[in-house]
C-alpha cells in the first residue's frame, strides 16, 4: 500500500515536472520564453493547470456511451500505473519483484489500447473514433518491433526478471542470487578475454555488452514514441486535423486523468528503456585501476547510499530520455499514416527479426 502511494505521489510530481519541461523546452526551441507568470519562471504553471482542470465542470455528452466514457480514463491510468509495479528503482527496492516482470510489463502496457478504444468509441464523436482507431492501429503495430527489441535483451540476459537484468549490467552482478559465478566480458565476447565484471559502469550496460543492442535501443525508443502517441507519431492526436483525437470530448477531471495517463506512459517507456538497455540503476562511471569510480557511485545495496545512488542514476537517465522525447517532438513534423506503417512493418520489424537472431548467436559466443 505504501509503495502504491509513494509511487503515485512520485509519478504525479514527475508528470507535473515533465509537463512544465515540455512547455519550457518547446518555448526555448522556438525562441520563445514559455510560461513566466505563475511563480518564478512559471514553475507553478502545471500545478495551476491541474487546479484549473479539477475545478471544471464534468461534461458528459448526452449521446455518449456513459459507462464506457466514464471508465476509459480510469482503465488507461490504471494500466500504466500497474506497469510501474515491476520497475526496479534501486538494487533493493522494487514494488513487486515479479519473476516474469518483462512479460507482465508488455501485457499490461497493451491494456492501454482498450482504454483508448473505450474513450474513442464511448465519446460518440467522429474525430474521437477516428483518433482512437488510428491510435489502436499504431500502437498494436509498434508493439511488434518494441516487443522484439525487448525480446533481444531477454535473450542476452536470459531472464524475464527486471531486477536480475538490472544486476547483470553493473558491478553488483555477483551479489544477485543465482548470478554468483557469472562473468561479464567486454562486448560480451569471451574470446576477447577482457573481464569487466568488476569494472562495471558503462562497459557492462546492455548496449555495450552486445553492441548491436544499441540499434535495438534506437528502434525501441522510436517505437515507444509511437506507443505513447508522441510526435512525430501523433497522428491519433493530431491537433491540427483531429482536434485532439480520442480525448476530444473529455474535460475537467477526466481530461486530467487522460493527460496523466499519457505522461505516465512517457515516463514508463523511458524507465523501461533505461532498465533494459542503459544499465538500469547502475552508474555509468567505470572502475579504472585504483580509481574506483563505479564503486564510489554505487553505494552499498540495501543501505541508504545504495538507495540514493540507485534512484539518482535511474532517474537522471530517465529524465535524459524524457528530454529527448520532448526534443524530438518539437523538431520533427508528423508522419503520414502510410509512412508510419511503412516504417513499422517494412523497416523496423525485419531489422528487429534479424537482431533477435543475432542476439541468440551472440549469447552463444558469450558463454
Amino acid at each position: 500500500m505504501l509503495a502504491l502511494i509513494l509511487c503515485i505521489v512520485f509519478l504525479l510530481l514527475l508528470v507535473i515536472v515533465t509537463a512544465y519541461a515540455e512547455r519550457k523546452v518547446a518555448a526555448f526551441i522556438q525562441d520563445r520564453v514559455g510560461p513566466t507568470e505563475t511563480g518564478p519562471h512559471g514553475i507553478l504553471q502545471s500545478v495551476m493547470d491541474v487546479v484549473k482542470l479539477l475545478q471544471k465542470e464534468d461534461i458528459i455528452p448526452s449521446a455518449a456511451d456513459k459507462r464506457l466514457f466514464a471508465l476509459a480514463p480510469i482503465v488507461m491510468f490504471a494500466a500504466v500505473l500497474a506497469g510501474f509495479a515491476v520497475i526496479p528503482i534501486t538494487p533493493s527496492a522494487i514494488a513487486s519483484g515479479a519473476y516474469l516482470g518483462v512479460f507482465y510489463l508488455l501485457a499490461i502496457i497493451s491494456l492501454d489500447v482498450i482504454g483508448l478504444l473505450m474513450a474513442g468509441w464511448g465519446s460518440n464523436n467522429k474525430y474521437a473514433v477516428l483518433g482512437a482507431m488510428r491510435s489502436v492501429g499504431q500502437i498494436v503495430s509498434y508493439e511488434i518491433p518494441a516487443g522484439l527489441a525487448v525480446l533481444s535483451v531477454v535473450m542476452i540476459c536470459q531472464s524475464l526478471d527486471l531486477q536480475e537484468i538490472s544486476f547483470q549490467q553493473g558491478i553488483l552482478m555477483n551479489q544477485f542470487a543465482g548470478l554468483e559465478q557469472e562473468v561479464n566480458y567486454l562486448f560480451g565476447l569471451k574470446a576477447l578475454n577482457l573481464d569487466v565484471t568488476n569494472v562495471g559502469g558503462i562497459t557492462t550496460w546492455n548496449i555495450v555488452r552486445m553492441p548491436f543492442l544499441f540499434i535495438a535501443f534506437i528502434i525501441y525508443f522510436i517505437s515507444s514514441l509511437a506507443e505513447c502517441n508522441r510526435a512525430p507519431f501523433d497522428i491519433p492526436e493530431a491537433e491540427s486535423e483531429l482536434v485532439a483525437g480520442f480525448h476530444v470530448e473529455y474535460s475537467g477531471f477526466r481530461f486530467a486523468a487522460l493527460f496523466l495517463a499519457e505522461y505516465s506512459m512517457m515516463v514508463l517507456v523511458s524507465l523501461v528503456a533505461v532498465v533494459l538497455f542503459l544499465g538500469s540503476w547502475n552508474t555509468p562511471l567505470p572502475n579504472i585501476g585504483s580509481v574506483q569510480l563505479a564503486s564510489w557511485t554505487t553505494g552499498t545495496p540495501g543501505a541508504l547510499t545504495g538507495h540514493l545512488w540507485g534512484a539518482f542514476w535511474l532517474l537522471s537517465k530517465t529524465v535524459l530520455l524524457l528530454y529527448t522525447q520532448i526534443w524530438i517532438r518539437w523538431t520533427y513534423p508528423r508522419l503520414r499514416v502510410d509512412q508510419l506503417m511503412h516504417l513499422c512493418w517494412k523497416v523496423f520489424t525485419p531489422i528487429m527479426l534479424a537482431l533477435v537472431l543475432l542476439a541468440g548467436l551472440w549469447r552463444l559466443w558469450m558463454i
Partner: protein
Amino acid sequence: MKEYISNKYNNSFFSVVGALLKGMQLTLQHFFRANKRREPTFVSDPNYFKQPEGLVTLTYPYESLPVPEVGRYRLHNEIDDCIVCDLCAKICPVNCIEIESIKATEDIGITSDGTKKRLHAAVFNIDLAKCCYCGLCTTVCPTDCLTMTKVYDFPEVDIKNMIYHYTDLSPEQAQEKRQKYEQQQAEIAEAKAAALRAKQEAAKGNI
C-alpha cells in the same frame, strides 16, 4: 525532371539519418541559446533589424520596444492653447472630433504663441476608437496645441471611455458662459433697438 528530383533529395539511408540529426542539432542549438534574449532597443540601434540569437519575445507589459518621438499614437490637446478654430474637426477624415464653441464675453487671454483666444470650448471630444491616427488634425492646428504622444497602450473595457474629453469647462460652467453670451447679445440687441427707437423718434420730431 526526374533526375533533378533525385539529385535534390538524396534518399540514401545515411543522408536521411544525417538530415534527421541535423534537425536535432538545430533545435538543440536554439535550446542552448535560450539564455540570450532580445533587448528592447530603439529602432536606430544597428541590431534592431537583425535577428540576434536567443529568445525573441519581449515580456510586453514589463519591457517594450521604445517608440519614435514622431510616432502617431494617442492624441493630446493642450486646451489652454486651443483657439477652438474647428479646423481639426473639419479636416478629420472620420469625423471623430466633436467641437462646440461659445463666444467669449470677456477677454480670456492669449495662447502661448500669442494668438488671442475668443472662444470657449464647451465640448471638445475626440473619439479615439474611431480615430485612424492619420495625424491630419495635428498638421492643420494653427497653434500646435493638438499633438500626438508616445502612448499607444490605452485599452478600455467600455468603448465609451475611448472618447477623450479635453474641455476645461464643466457643463455648468459652459451653461453659465452660454447664458452670459446670450445676455450680452440680448443687451446689445436691446441697446441697438433703443438706439433705433431714439433715431426714429428723432426723425419723427424733425418732421
